[in-house]
């Protein structure tokens, strides 16, 4: 299991978290190489279907990251995103699926260090969980 490098999909808000990831890169902070960032315009762009698609295709972890509450570029996007995320995660939990593979974090444009920490912490957590069984399930 020590060779397991979790595949983590990160939906990063363009204005904060994606910029935070940039800062982390420029500062040469350590971010697990298996992290796959996807730039979105706002955390509220994330429809539950996108998270679920990644999950059912076998992503080991899915991170949704946006601006801190109050700082969304579109004012309220992240508040709505938080409600939708809660419904998505709660649905997986109610279905008895791995809701633990989903994480929501607020990371600002200057928080390179926090970005690296969030991703590393999440990666460690997923390593303990092991690979997503859906990776090898004939796709329900």
């Amino acid at each position, binding site marked *: 299991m020590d060779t397991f490098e979790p595949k983590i999909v990160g939906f990063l808000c363009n204005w904060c978290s994606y910029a935070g990831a940039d800062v982390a890169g420029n500062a040469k902070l350590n971010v697990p190489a298996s992290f796959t960032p996807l730039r979105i315009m706002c955390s509220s762009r994330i429809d539950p279907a996108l998270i679920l698609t990644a999950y059912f295709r076998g992503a080991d972890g899915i991170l949704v990251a946006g601006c801190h509450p109050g700082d969304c570029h579109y004012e*309220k996007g992240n508040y709505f995103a938080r409600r939708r995320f809660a419904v998505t995660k709660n649905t997986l939990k109610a279905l008895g*699926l791995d809701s633990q593979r989903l994480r929501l974090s607020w990371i600002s444009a200057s928080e390179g260090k926090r970005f690296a920490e969030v991703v590393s912490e999440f990666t460690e957590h997923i390593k303990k969980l092991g690979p997503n069984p859906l990776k090898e399930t004939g796709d329900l």
Partner: protein
Amino acid sequence: MSNYDIIRKKTIEFLKKARDAGCFKHILIPMEIPSKESFSYVLIKDESFLIDASPLPPVNPVQGAKVLSSLTRRGELTGKTAAVMRPCEIRAVIELGKLGQVKLENIVLISIDCPGLLPFSSYTADPEKGKARFEKVIGEWGNDSIRPVCMTCTHFADKAGDIHIGIIENNNDISVIPVNDRGKALLEQCVIPAGKDTGARETKIKKETDKRQENLNKSDDELKNSLQGLNNLDKMFADCIGCYNCMRACPICYCRLCYFNSENIRHEADEYIRRAEAKGSLRFPADTLLFHSGRMTHMSLSCVGCGACEDACPVSIPVARIFQFIARQNQALFAYTPGSDREENIPLVVYKESELEDFEDSH
């Protein structure tokens, strides 16, 4: 006269009186279809049709909220129309009203105590027997020939409309109960004495509600064992043919084009091959669980448990019970009861600045 006919006759009398007094011009109400095999909603202007109306049909092929949404799709009604429906249908109407999918102006919502509905397919197999069974259902309240999802419904006597027709413990009569100011004004306008909840009615409702709650707890326990987890989900949806009837019959699924029925989830052959290679195999129809869980995340906050999806499923998957099981857990996140309060927003369009801390930075 049978219970069914008494309720029918009394309700029609009330509607006729209210219409003659100018409370509304048209009436939308279920009616038996000429072949006597089923029922459908009919918009009535001509009084001669009203005598055939069935305010409490034993089956309900099309959910009333869907009917009102097609009726007002292009704009509100100009004259007043009364819509007589079961509480779950009216609750769905209220949800659609919030979403701008039903224009509630000029619609007088009239709810009626609901003893449950029979499963659609069992009724159409033998309508005569079905009618006899339904007569017993009305007599007994909570008889187990009603749909399983109705057996677990605690909203059967919800005064969901502007006016509510009470039939529980009413000694061969109905009681016309005004629910809000609008209903009160209408009854006054047409000089119809306002009925009210009697002690006997409330006691009976409480007793039935407790029974249903017990059924619900039992059904939840069953679902925990038979639904949760990958293997169970696989079994539960193994027969799903991907017809999307459940989505189409659902009053809450209002999107003109469902994401899960769109080109967004139709892919190039290569992509399916890649998925099959990565996973070892790929089942078709593909994305079954994505469809069901996706629909849950999109609409479950407003799911009223009407059972329309389950009635429409050709392979008898207990879709309504499954969706209600998930829906109630999602609704609990926001202490939301769909269709109960017209002023309360659907949770996904509002927020609090501080909330849901458990979902932040946690796994």
